[in-house]
């Protein structure tokens, strides 16, 4: 009896969340982080194709890019930038709370992150609605005054494709965080095992990074000239 107990002790802490294919919690955590980053790299390339299209058309049609960009509201885009970077801060604090073993704080910071994400999406809906009102949605009903209407339509196509794909990622992230917040509320995490919180955090920060590029590239083109 005492023999088996000491054998278990010498094998090290065997946490309930340790999967059988890993030797230690450290190794498991390292694998999760690496796997998440491999996924995020595919996401970088996924968005990268759209950024490539953006770059090429911007070089081809600089005047249309300036015209199209002026149609976007810097105030709304700027507020959304602040909101989203703020949500990255609350997400980082949620991960920290999980790491240090404060489940209540983890839940609260996750809820704060979701609230900020929600504010971002609501503002985005208002921006889209305004575009629909002005007939600035690319397609058969597209109307734009000016010499580069067709090319501005390409700009707005990319605007909707890029911000739309970004918003879809936000919605997915919102769903992800609601599950994680529920798990944290149920005290599923501990300083030994909080990988889901950290991995969701990586995803959320990635979505923030995409917006960090979208904001200047879409809203701040050629404002000074």
């Amino acid at each position, binding site marked *: 009896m005492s023999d088996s107990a000491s054998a278990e002790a010498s094998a090290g802490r065997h946490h309930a969340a340790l999967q059988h294919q890993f030797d230690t919690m450290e190794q498991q955590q*390292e694998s999760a982080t690496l796997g998440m980053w491999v996924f995020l790299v595919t996401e*970088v390339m996924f968005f990268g*194709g759209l950024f*490539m299209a953006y770059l090429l058309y911007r070089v*081809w049609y600089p005047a249309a890019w300036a015209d199209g960009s002026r149609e976007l509201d810097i105030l709304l885009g700027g507020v959304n930038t602040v909101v989203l970077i703020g949500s990255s801060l609350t997400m980082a604090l949620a991960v920290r709370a999980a790491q240090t073993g404060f489940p209540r704080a983890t839940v609260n910071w996750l809820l704060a992150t979701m609230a900020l994400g929600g504010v971002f999406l609501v503002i985005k809906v208002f921006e889209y609605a305004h575009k629909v009102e002005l007939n600035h949605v690319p397609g058969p009903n597209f109307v734009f005054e000016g010499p580069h209407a067709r090319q501005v339509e390409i700009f707005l196509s990319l605007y909707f494709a890029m911000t739309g794909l970004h918003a879809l990622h936000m919605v997915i992230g919102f769903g992800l965080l609601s599950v994680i917040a529920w798990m944290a509320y149920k005290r599923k995490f501990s300083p030994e095992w909080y990988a889901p919180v950290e991995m969701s955090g990586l995803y959320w*920060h990635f979505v923030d990074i995409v917006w960090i590029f979208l904001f*200047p*590239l879409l809203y701040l083109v050629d404002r000074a000239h």
Partner: protein
Amino acid sequence: MSGHVSPKTVSYTIFASLMVLTGITVAVAFINLGPLNFPVALSIAIVKATLVILFFMHVKYSSRLTKLVVATGFFFLLILFTLTMTDYLSRGWLTYPVGAGAPPAATQAH
């Protein structure tokens, strides 16, 4: 566990830096720098993204393997941009010998 715990002050400092950089990028957008507006805006965005990756995403404290994977991702993104642009931007440079016919439509599109 092995995960790095960042002090709260680091998170707040990074957040403040990101806010300041956002302010700068908006302000600079209204200053006429000629052809430099785009590179400046892009550089600020890259600095912001780097801060998020290193500190919020803990890559600064991750294993060398993770760092390598992250760097590889952005390296391939750079290949995508560079090779595509060298192709498209150099198409107009070709000269066509007399009698070889009109250049392909793609070079005339703009």
